[in-house]
């Protein structure tokens, strides 16, 4: 039982955070969010570094590492709130690799892994996917229907209409597929891919929570009211402590989910549900608390906290909110309890 990263994983984490701190400070995020664009220069650099394909098998042009490594990157991207479409590509690749045919894998994975192609995953019902992150500019879309079936469609065969979500750090789109003949059902079971995707989304939420906490801690140490730093008020300190509690809890769950995906898939379904539930509720709570603890300034466009809050809102709802996943936790736990037999 050892929660420590390997040396390589530590190195990936260190490098990713340093790179993003240098390349994607909030000034940069703001610039792209306000312009409604992605940071293409950064995207290209990340593609060259192999980030989108970190968890894609080497035979498909990826780095052949695991979900733990992908989660490390996505947490760092969430922390930076970086305006890049990487998550969409990584999620699409997960589905294609887990459940696609070898033709589909050959067609899409190398491009997604290198960053040459872009992907997106969206929730779809009755022919419409109303709010698909990273859809605008995607080359390939994976659409999940409410029954857990996933279909693959080339962007050329779909209509993608840009939508201004409240999160302006990502480009969202409404996807309509007029001719469903252009869609390919992913043949194999996609549930494992979906579980991995839930953990991956949770990782970004943990990153946003961490950043919200860090900004808040720095602010409340500095900001004075009534002659003292506001961080010395218990009402402030205890709220910050709760932010840590929520962030660390969600991080524990997310790391466990990623590890389970890589090493012990029997544990993945429950671990993924716990991770997504905890990170969604935690992400909403911590980013809201950060605004509160910044007081009036936290409510301004200038203060940067709102990028985190808005992204957390979208990510919390994506692939099921806290309630959906708590229900899954309950169902899976009840199965385990029933299987364990009589009390």
């Amino acid at each position, binding site marked *: 039982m050892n929660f420590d990263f390997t040396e390589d994983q530590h190195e990936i984490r260190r490098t990713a955070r340093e790179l993003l701190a240098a390349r994607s400070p909030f000034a940069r995020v703001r610039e792209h969010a306000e312009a409604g664009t992605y940071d293409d220069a950064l995207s290209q650099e990340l593609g060259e570094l192999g980030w989108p394909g970190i968890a894609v098998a080497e035979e498909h042009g990826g780095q052949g590492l695991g979900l733990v490594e992908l989660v490390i990157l996505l947490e760092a991207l969430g922390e930076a709130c970086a305006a890049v479409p990487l998550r969409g590509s990584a999620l699409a690749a997960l589905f294609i690799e887990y459940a696609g045919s070898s033709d589909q894998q050959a067609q899409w994975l190398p491009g997604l892994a290198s960053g040459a192609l872009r992907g997106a995953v969206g929730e779809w019902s009755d022919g419409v996917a109303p709010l698909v992150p990273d859809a605008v500019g995607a080359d390939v879309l994976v659409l999940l229907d409410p029954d857990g079936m996933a279909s693959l469609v080339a962007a050329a065969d779909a209509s993608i209409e840009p939508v*201004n979500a409240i999160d302006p750090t990502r480009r969202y789109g409404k996807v309509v597929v007029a001719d469903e003949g252009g869609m390919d059902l992913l043949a194999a079971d996609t549930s494992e891919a979906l579980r991995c995707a839930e953990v991956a989304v949770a990782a970004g939420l943990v990153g946003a929570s961490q950043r919200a906490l860090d900004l808040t801690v720095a602010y409340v140490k500095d900001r004075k009211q009534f002659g003292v730093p506001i961080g010395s008020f218990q009402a402030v300190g205890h709220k910050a402590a709760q932010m840590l509690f929520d962030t660390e809890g969600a991080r524990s769950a997310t790391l466990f989910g990623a590890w389970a995906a890589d090493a012990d898939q029997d544990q993945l379904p429950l671990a993924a549900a716990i991770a997504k539930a905890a990170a969604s509720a935690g992400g909403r709570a911590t980013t809201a608390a950060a*605004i*509160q603890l910044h007081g009036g300034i*936290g409510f301004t466009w200038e203060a940067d906290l709102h990028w985190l*809050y808005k992204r957390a809102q979208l990510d919390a709802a994506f692939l099921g909110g806290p309630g959906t996943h708590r229900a899954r936790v309950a169902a899976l736990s009840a199965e385990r309890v029933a299987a364990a037999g009589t009390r």
Partner: protein
Amino acid sequence: MDLTFAPNEAQFRDELRGWLAANGPGPEPEGEDAQYAWRRDWQRKLHEGGWAGVHWPVEYGGRGATLVESAIFYEELARSGHPLPANVLGLLLGGPTLMVWGTDEQKERYLTPILSAEEIWCQGFSEPDAGSDFAAVKTRAVEQPDGSFRVTGQKVWTSGAQYSKWCMLVARTDSGAAKHKGLTYFLMDMGQPQVQVRPLVQITGESEFNELFLEDAVIPAENVVGGVGNGWKVALTTLMNERAGLAFGLQVRLRVMIDELTQIAAENGQLEDPRVADQLGELHLRCEILRLTAYRGLTATMKYGQPGPEGSLTKWMWSETNQMLTQFAADVVGPEALTMGTKWSYELLRARGNTIEGGTTEILKNIVAERVLGLPKAK
């Protein structure tokens, strides 16, 4: 105990409801300036109908309404969907403060243009380093040989500043005096170049609020309210009035939104989910308790005079409930609530300000602990 409207109250409500049904501001235009002008016209119409200063005494041009009637006014206005009048700060805060502290000349000069929206008022209390802390006000007013004052400093969270003629300004006139002493309450003319207004954009993308930059702004001696050095007391009168009237409107606005969400949940079948019903039940319950507690506060005010610190409880309850509602709506309404330009997304973002503006929840809890429960001042 009579928890329904007395006949005169019901009559007031029915008359008002009839008037609001027959009169309105017309469709809301696009753009902040046009919207402000629209609310200003709307106040003129209210004024002509005799509905602008319902709670003001008749001698000052008001309707002389009782506290309950005034509550009914804000409830009905919210229910009608019509906006607040443009000069809401003048009506709720500025006028009542002058009635207590103003000289006869000041009352004569200022009250009528407040009612008619001819002169809009704004409030200059907060400063960047004195958010919740009056004692830290740094803006300085220096008395000149002719008795006038020159004011330099910075104010923040000033809503409607760009449309205002007068600013209720608290500034330090005696930097030697400690803390709350040495403050003076002024009426500052906004129409001078020594006052610069910079809009503060909120996380919603709108700018309801502004920063004010004052550099040697001029205030004549006769624009001191309540005497030099008495600013803390005068400002308290303003703050005490702040939460009383609007609470009723906010509570009805909340009720309308909860009802709307209930209807959405009923239409899309989510009401069948006991978890959704449970949350809606909690919201309905809180909103009703908010209404009742606000009316209980009115009764207490009528009996014991001044509005009391209980107002802190309703503001706290309302802001928390509104945040709960709007977050829950994101789950019930779905993607639409996360898309810019929709009502629900606006409310979701705007609600974050509720627990900050007009006293953070943390400060309100301090007030409740100290002034209602009598606990020792928080360290």
